[in-house]
C-alpha cells in the first residue's frame, strides 16, 4: 500500500521540461505525444510524395532517377501508414479511451511509454539509408513498395531493405504494446455500469482493431524475418531455385496486409458516429448493428487477402472465391454507411468543422468503397491490377476515409484537449481546400488508371499528360493547405475563446462531463454509469 501511495504522490509532481515528456506514463501526455508524432510523420510522408508528384508533373524524367522515385513512393507509403495514421489513431485511443470508459489511466502505463518511445527510433532507422546515400554510402532506402514484394530477393539488394525489415520489427513491437494495452484497459478497467454494449463506438472499434493487430502483426514480422534470413542466412523460404516460393511471400504479406487496411480504417469508423450524432442532436443510430458490423468486417478481413493477388496465377476456383468473399465485405460496410446516414436523417444538423469533415468522410469513403466493389471482379481486375485505378481507390479509403476521419476527430476533441475553441472560419476553409484539392488529385488518377497508366513507374505515356498535370497541381495545393491545419492547431493551443466542459451543444459521453482541458488525473473515483 505504501508503494501505491508513493506512486500517486510522485505522479502529482511531474518532472519539469523535457523529462516530463520522456518519462511520462500519463495517458493524456502519451496521447499527445503519439498524436504529435503522427502529425509530424504526416508532413514528412507528404513531403516525399510532393517530390514524386513533381516528377510526374510532366512526361519524361526531370528530377528523379527511377531508383530514387521507387524509394520516395515506398517511404511515402510506409511513413503514412505506419508512421502517421496508426500512431495518430493510437494517440486518440490513449487520450480518449480512459476518459470514455471512466478509467483513471491505461492499464499498463509503463508499457505505454515504451511503446511510444520505440516509434521515433523506428522512423530514424527507416530513413537512415535514404540520407546515407547522399554521402555515397549504400544504395538508399527500400524501394520495394509498402508491401515489400516487388522482388525483394535479388533485384534490389541494398541495405535499405534490411533497415526496413528491422523498422518493421520495431513498429510491430510498438503496435503490439499499444494493442495489448487497449484490450486490457477496455476489458478490465471500465467504470461500474459501463457494460460492453454501453461502450462508445470508438472504444468498440479500437477493441476490435487491437485484436486484429495482435493476430496479424506477428505474421508481418515473421514474413519480414523470413525475408531477412533468406537474404543473409541461407534459408530458402521464398527462393524458387532452392525449393522456396516467391508467391508465398505475397500470401504472407497480404494475409497481414488486408486486415491492416481495416486496422487503418476502424478507428475512424468508430469515431464518426460520435460526431454525426452530436451535430445532428440525435443519439447514435443503430448502435448494435454497428458493433456487429465491425465484428463482421474484422472476421471477413482475414479471409479475403488474395484479392490483392488475382493476377499472380491463382486457380480460377480460388479467384472466384476471393472475388465473392471480398464483395461480401460490402454487406457489413453498407450497414455502417446506412447507420451513418440514419444518424443525420431528420436531425437538427449544423455544419461546424468536425461535422464537415465527418460528412466529407462519409462521401469520400463511400466512393472508396464503391470503387473497391469493382476491383475484386476477377475479369476486371486483370486490367486494373497495379494501375492508377488502385492508387485512386485506396487513397479514397485511406485519405478520404482514414485521414478525413482523424481530422474530424482533431477538430471535434481539440477544444477538449486544449480548453480553447479553434478558429471556426479557418477550420471550414481548411475543410473546403482539403476536399477540393483531394478530389482534384485523385479523380484524374482514376481515369488515367482506367486508360492503362501503371503505378510504381517514374514516367508515363504522353496521353496521360493532362491528367498527371492536374493531379500534381492538386497534390501540391492539397499539401500546402494542410499547413493551414498546423496554424489552426497551434493557434488553438496558445489561446482562444474558452471551451465549456461539454464543448459542443449536444455532445454526449463521459469525456464531456469533465472540464476542458481535463485535469491531469481524471476518474480516480470511477463515475457511475446508468
Amino acid at each position, binding site marked *: 500500500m505504501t508503494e501505491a501511495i508513493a506512486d500517486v504522490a510522485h505522479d502529482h509532481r511531474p518532472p519539469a521540461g523535457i523529462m516530463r515528456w520522456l518519462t511520462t506514463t500519463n495517458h493524456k501526455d502519451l496521447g499527445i505525444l503519439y498524436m504529435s508524432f503522427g502529425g509530424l510523420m504526416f508532413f514528412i510522408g507528404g513531403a516525399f510524395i510532393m517530390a514524386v508528384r513533381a516528377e510526374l508533373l510532366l512526361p519524361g524524367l526531370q528530377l528523379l532517377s527511377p531508383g530514387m522515385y521507387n524509394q520516395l513512393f515506398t517511404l511515402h507509403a510506409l511513413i503514412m501508414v505506419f508512421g502517421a495514421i496508426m500512431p495518430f489513431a493510437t494517440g486518440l485511443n490513449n487520450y480518449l479511451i480512459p476518459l470514455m470508459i471512466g478509467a483513471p489511466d491505461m492499464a499498463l502505463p509503463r508499457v505505454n511509454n515504451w511503446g511510444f518511445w520505440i516509434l521515433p527510433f523506428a522512423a530514424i532507422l527507416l530513413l537512415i539509408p535514404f540520407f546515407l546515400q547522399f554521402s555515397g554510402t549504400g544504395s538508399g532506402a527500400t524501394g520495394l513498395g509498402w508491401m515489400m514484394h516487388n522482388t525483394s530477393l*535479388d533485384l534490389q539488394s541494398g541495405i535499405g531493405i534490411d533497415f526496413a525489415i528491422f523498422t518493421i520489427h520495431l513498429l510491430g513491437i510498438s503496435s503490439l504494446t499499444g494493442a495489448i494495452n487497449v484490450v486490457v484497459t477496455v476489458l*478490465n478497467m471500465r467504470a461500474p455500469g459501463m457494460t460492453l454494449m454501453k461502450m462508445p463506438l470508438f472504444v468498440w472499434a479500437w477493441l476490435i482493431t487491437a485484436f486484429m493487430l*495482435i493476430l496479424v502483426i*506477428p*505474421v508481418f514480422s515473421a514474413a519480414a524475418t523470413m525475408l531477412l534470413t533468406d537474404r543473409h542466412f541461407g534459408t530458402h523460404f521464398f527462393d524458387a531455385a532452392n525449393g522456396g516460393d516467391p508467391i508465398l511471400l505475397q500470401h504472407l504479406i497480404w494475409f497481414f496486409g488486408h486486415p491492416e487496411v481495416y486496422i487503418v480504417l476502424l478507428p475512424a469508423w468508430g469515431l464518426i458516429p460520435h460526431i454525426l450524432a452530436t451535430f445532428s442532436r440525435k443519439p447514435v443510430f443503430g448502435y448494435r448493428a454497428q458493433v456487429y458490423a465491425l465484428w463482421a468486417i474484422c472476421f471477413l478481413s482475414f479471409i479475403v487477402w488474395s484479392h490483392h493477388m488475382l493476377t499472380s496465377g491463382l*486457380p480460377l476456383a480460388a479467384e472466384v472465391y476471393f472475388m465473392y468473399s471480398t464483395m461480401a465485405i460490402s454487406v457489413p460496410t453498407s450497414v455502417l454507411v446506412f447507420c451513418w446516414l440514419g444518424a443525420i436523417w431528420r436531425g437538427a444538423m449544423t455544419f461546424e468543422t468536425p461535422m464537415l469533415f465527418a460528412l466529407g468522410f462519409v462521401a469520400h469513403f463511400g466512393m472508396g468503397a464503391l470503387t473497391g466493389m469493382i476491383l475484386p471482379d476477377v475479369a476486371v481486375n486483370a486490367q486494373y491490377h497495379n494501375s492508377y485505378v488502385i492508387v485512386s481507390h485506396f487513397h479514397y479509403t485511406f485519405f478520404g476515409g482514414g485521414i478525413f476521419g482523424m481530422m474530424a476527430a482533431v477538430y471535434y476533441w481539440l477544444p477538449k484537449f486544449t480548453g480553447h475553441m479553434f478558429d471556426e472560419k479557418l477550420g471550414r476553409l481548411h475543410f473546403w481546400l482539403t476536399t477540393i484539392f483531394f478530389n482534384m488529385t485523385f479523380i484524374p488518377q482514376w481515369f488515367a488508371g482506367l486508360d492503362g497508366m501503371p503505378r510504381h513507374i517514374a514516367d508515363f505515356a504522353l496521353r496521360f499528360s493532362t491528367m498527371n498535370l492536374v493531379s500534381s497541381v492538386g497534390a501540391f495545393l492539397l499539401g500546402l493547405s494542410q499547413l493551414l491545419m498546423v496554424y489552426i492547431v497551434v493557434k488553438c493551443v496558445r489561446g482562444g475563446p474558452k471551451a465549456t466542459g461539454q464543448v459542443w451543444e449536444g455532445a454526449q459521453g463521459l469525456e464531456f462531463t469533465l472540464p476542458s482541458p481535463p485535469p491531469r488525473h481524471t476518474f480516480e473515483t470511477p463515475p457511475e454509469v446508468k
Partner: protein
Amino acid sequence: MDEALRHKNWRLTIKLLLMVAAATGFAFALVPFYDLLCEVTGLNGKTGAAVQGAQASKVDAARWVTVEFTSTVMPGMSWEFRPAQTRMRVHPGETARISYLARNPTNQVMTGQAVPSVSPGWAAQHFNKIECFCFQRQVLKPGEVKEMPLVFFVSPELPAEVQEISLSYTLFPVSG
C-alpha cells in the same frame, strides 16, 4: 490501481502475449502448409516428387495428349537452356522420354536449378515424372554442354477436357 486489478491486468496481458506467440507460430506453420496445399491440389502448377516407373498402368491408346515444353532462364543466369524438342504427342499412361539441353558459355563452374511448372494447374497432379534433371542441382564446367533427361508419363486419370499440357522449366542460378 489496487493489487487485485493489477494482478488481473497482468493475467490478461500474459494471455494476449500467448496469442501473439501463437500468431507467430501460425505464420511459420503456413510455410509447410502452403507447400502441402500446392502439392495436393496442384496449385501453382506444382508437380510432385519422383514416382516409380511404369506402374503397369494401362495405356489409353485411344486418346492423344499433346505435351509442350518451354524454358525460361532467370536474370543473372547466363546459361543457354532449351528443350531438344518443343512438343510431343503421347497416350495417357505411356512412358515418354525427352531431354533438355544446357550449355555454360562462361569460363566458370556454375550451378543451376530448374524449377518445373505445369499449365493448366489442375493437370499438374496427373503429370508424373519418373526421372528428371530438376530433382538435382546441375553443375556445368566452363563451356560444357549437357543433355539432361526427363522421363514422364501422363496418368490416364487426366480429365478428358485437357488435350494439351505445357511443361515449363525455369532455370535459376544457385550461388555458393
